[in-house]
C-alpha cells in the first residue's frame, strides 16, 4: 500500500557494532528473535540517551518486525526515551515509601532549583527531571536515581551538594547506606533490561 517517504539517511547504529549485535541475538533462539528487542533498545538508549524513530526502524528491520511493534514495547517502559535526556537524568521516586519520607518536597526542591518540571530537560542538556514509580529501594527512601546510580536518603542538603557536584560535572560516589542498593554486594544495576 502507500509507501513511506524515506527518512533522512542516518548511519545505522549497529553498522559498526556487528559483534555486539550478534552477541545479543545469540542469547535467544531463532524463533524467539524478537526477544532481543529490549536489549537492543537498551543498547541504543545507553549510547544515545534516547531512541530515535530512525533507530526504532533499524531495530525493527534487524528483528523482522514492524516499527509499530518496537514502538509499542518501547513506549510501555518509562526507561526508554523518545527525546534525548540530559547528561544527568534525575529520576525521583514518588511511590508510597518515598512519598512518606518526603519525596514530594524533594521533587519541589529540584523543580525550583533546576527550573524544570517533570519530563523536561534544561537547554544545556545537563539535567533532566522525571518522576518515576517505585525504584525498589523503599528502605532507604527517599531515593533519587541519577542515570543508573541510586542516591539514597536524599535530604535537602545532600541534594544541594549533589546538584553542585553535577554542575561541576563531577558526579560523586553515592553514599553507602546500610541495606541500600549501593552496598558493595548489592545486585548489579546494569541492564535494567531484563
Amino acid at each position: 500500500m502507500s509507501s513511506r517517504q524515506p527518512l533522512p539517511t542516518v548511519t545505522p547504529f549497529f553498522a559498526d557494532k556487528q559483534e555486539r549485535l550478534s552477541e545479543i541475538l545469540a542469547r535467544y533462539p531463532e524463533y524467539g528473535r524478537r526477544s532481543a528487542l529490549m536489549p537492543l533498545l537498551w543498547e541504543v538508549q545507553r549510547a544515545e540517551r534516547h531512541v530515535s524513530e530512525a533507530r526504532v526502524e533499524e531495530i525493527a528491520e534487524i528483528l523482522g518486525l514492524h516499527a509499530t511493534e518496537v514502538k509499542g514495547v518501547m513506549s510501555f517502559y518509562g526507561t526508554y526515551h523518545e527525546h534525548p535526556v540530559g547528561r544527568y537524568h534525575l529520576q525521583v521516586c514518588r511511590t508510597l515509601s518515598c512519598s512518606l519520607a518526603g519525596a514530594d518536597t524533594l521533587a519541589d526542591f529540584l523543580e525550583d532549583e533546576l527550573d524544570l518540571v517533570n519530563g523536561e530537560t534544561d537547554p544545556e542538556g545537563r539535567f533532566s527531571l522525571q518522576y518515576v514509580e517505585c525504584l525498589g529501594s523503599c528502605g532507604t527512601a527517599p531515593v533519587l536515581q541519577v542515570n543508573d546510580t541510586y542516591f539514597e536518603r536524599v535530604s535537602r542538603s545532600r541534594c544541594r551538594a549533589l546538584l553542585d557536584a553535577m554542575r561541576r560535572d563531577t558526579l560523586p560516589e553515592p553514599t553507602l547506606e546500610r541495606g541500600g542498593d549501593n552496598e558493595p554486594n548489592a545486585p548489579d544495576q546494569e541492564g535494567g533490561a531484563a
Partner: protein
Amino acid sequence: MKVTVNGTVLELDPGTSAIDAVFAAGFDVPYFCSQPYMSPIGACRMCLARIGAPRKERDGSWILDESSGEPKVFYFPAMMATCTTAIMEGMVIDTLSKDVKDAQNAMVEFTLINHPLDCPVCDKGGACELQDRAYEYGTGRSRFVFDKRHQEKHHPLSALITLDRERCIHCKRCVRYFEEVPGDEVLDFIERGGHTYIGTLEDGLPSNFTGNITDICPVGALLDATSRFRGRNWEYDHTFTTSLDDASGSAIVVDARTGRIERIKSGLNPEVNKSWIDDGIRFGHEYADDPERLKRPLLRRGEGFEEVSWEEAAAFVAERLAGFSGKDVGVAIRADATLEEGVAARALAQHVGTGQLDHAPRHGPSLVPLHGATVLDVATADALLVLGDVTEELPALDLRIKDALKGVSPPELFAHGVPIADLRLKERMPRASERLAVVAPYRVDLMKYAGAAVQVPVAGEAAWLQAMAAVAHAQPADEAVLGMPRAEAESLVRAWREAQKPIMIVGGFVLASEAATEAAASLAKAVGFRQVLVPPMANGVGLEITQVLPSHARYDYQGMLGGSAKALVLSNLNPAVDPAVAERLRSCELLVVHDLFLTETARLAHVVLPGTSGYEKDGTMVSLEGRFLPVRAAPVDAGEARDLTGVVKALGEAFGQRLEGRSVRSARRVLRKELGFDPTELHRLGLLRELPRRRAIVSLNVRETVVGDSLRVPSLARPEYLGRNAHLRAALGGPALRLHPEDAAARGLRTGDEVVVPVDGVPRRLEVRVSDAVPRGVSLVPATPEAPAGPAAVALDDLVHERRALEVA
C-alpha cells in the same frame, strides 16, 4: 463433557470455552475482547462468571458431597473470565447470581470511566456493543465525578480509517486482528496504563485488510472514513449480498440510506471469507454514487446525445438490428455479470441469430479444473503452491492460505454461530511456512510467509512448471529455471506428494498462457495437487458454465472488436480505451453500450443504456470454487438504470418477442432447467456444486502477438473505478506504474510522479511507485477488464512526464 450452566445440563466437546458453553445453554454473558475467529485473551474481564468443578482424590475417584453423595463442586476462589477458561467434566457455571451481576456491573462501570458520553454524535450509536452492555449490565448512573481522560478524537490512522482515541476501551481486538489474521503487525498499543492508546508508526496502515477493524471494534473508536457522520445505524437498510468485486464470493452487507450506499461491511460466510473482507471490496463502493452515473438512456443525435425513454431507445435499437444479418451482430458482457444477465445475453444473441457472444475478460483455458478444491480446502491444506499474486488478485484466498499455515481447522459451529472463544487460537501462533511455496514474476506479499519463494522471469511460469514436473518424474531439469538447487526442488516435490491435502492455486499470470496452464495441470497430476483457478473477474466461472461463449473461436470478444461484428452490444465493457479499437468502433454500424458511465466507448455509441452496479442487481454468481451465491439489490437510487435482463426486456418488447431472460425471474426459469435447482431459493451462504467442465477450449486470441518484458498485474482495487473511489484512491494512490529503483533512477522518475505511458499501445495515465519488489527491467502496470493480468509491453521510452511529485524534505 457434562457442563451445567445455571442449572441447564449440556454435553459439549472437550476444548470448548466456558463462554461458548454459556451461550450454547441459551444464556448471555457480556464480552468485549473476544471475537470469533480470533484468540481469546481475557483482557476486558467483562465475561466474568462464578465457576466451579468437582475434584478428584489421589486414587482418581471424585470427592463426594457428604449430604448428596454426588461429586462435590469446588468453586474457584475468584470470578473467572469465561472466554479463557476451558470446560471440565462436571463444571458448573453460574452467570445469574448476585455476585456475578455485581462483578459485571463493576466491570461496566470501570470500562465506562474513561469512555466519553458522546453516543448521540457517535456513528456506532445504536450498534455499539458497549452501549448495549451498559444498558444490560450497568447501573445506568455514573459515580465518576472526575475529569475523563482526554485524547485525540479524529486521528486518521489512514485515509480509510479514523480513530477516536477517547472512545477506545483497549479491548485489543484490532491489535490482535492485524497480527492474527493478515499477519501485518501494523497497529499496537502505545504507552501504558491509563495513557495507553492505539497507534502506528507505519504510514497509513500498510495492509490490504485494514477495514475489518471497523467491523470488530466494539465501540465507536475505529470508524470507516467513507461513512463517518453519514447516518445512524437504525436508518440503514442492510442488504446481505455477495461481492461482485472478485471471484471469492465474499459475503458483504450493503448499508444504504435514502437511496445511497453509505458503507459496506463484511458479511459472515464461514466457508468462504469468514467475517473478513479486503479493503477493495469494503471501500470500493463510492463509484456507485458518482454524480456522473448515467440515469437515463441516451440516443445519438448528430455529435451529441439526447436523453430518451427506454422504449424509444429500445425501438431504435430493434429497428436498426433488423437491418443486420444475425451473424453480423456481436454481444459481449463483462465477466462480473450475473448468471441471469448471462442468460439474457444468450437470449439476445439467440434471438438475433448470432454466434458472436462472449464475456470478457476471459482466459483461453477453462476455469473449471479437473480436480478442483474449495476455499475451505485451501484453509485446511497441508501443502500449498501459489502461482501468482493472490493477495491482490483474490485477497480472501490470501487470508485462507494464512489460516492453513496456522494449521487450526475451522471451528465447528454452535447453534449460536461461530465459537466466541476458540481456545485453539493463540496470539502469535507459529505459522508453518514450509507448507507454502509461492511462485511469481515479482516479489509478492505472500512470499514473506512462504517457506519457498521463487521469482520467475516474466512469462516464465510455464518453463518453471515444466521443470518442476521434470523433477517430479525424475528427469533432468535446469536449476536456473527451477530457481533453486535440485535437491530443494526434490524435497518440495516430496513434501507435496506426502501431503494429505496438497493444493495448487493458479493465478492470472499462468491462466493467461495456455502452455503454462497445461504445465500447471500436468504438474498437478504428477504430484497429486488439487487446483484452484482464479478467474479474472467475479463471475467468470458462472458465465463459462452457462455458456456465454462464442460459437467459434474467431467470434470471441477480440474477434468482434477486430471486425467480425458490424453491430455490437457491449455491457460494461470499454474497449475504446485502446485508440486502435476506438478507430474501428467509429466505423461500427450500430454500437449499443450498456454501462454505468459515459466511457470512451459509450461516447462512440449510437445508443447508451444506463446500467446497474454490482450492488443494485438481483442475481446469482458462481465463485471460483463453484459455489452458487445470491446477489441482492440494495435500495439504491440508480435512476432508470437496469441490469442486462432489463435491457433484454426492453429490446424484446420492441421486437414484439418475449425473450428468455427478460427478467431475473424468467432467467431463473431457464437456469432452473439447466442447473437442476432454483436460484431463487439459494441460501445466503450459497450452494457448492460440482461443475461441468467446458468441452472444448475456446481460445481467445488475446493480443498474442504482443509479448512484452513487463506485466499487467492484478490489483485489489478495481482500476476501472479507482478514480471514482475517492477514499480508496487516497489510501492506495492512483493506478501505479511500479518500477525497480534503478530503472526509475535511470529515467529520473520518483514515487508520486504522474506519467502517461503506452501499455500495449494504449496510453495510460499512471502514478510512479518505486519498489524493490519489482525486478530490474520490468515495469508493472495494473490489469484492467480490457487487458487482464499477463505479459505486457510498456514503452518506457515513450513515457511522458505529466507532473512531478512534490519534493519532500
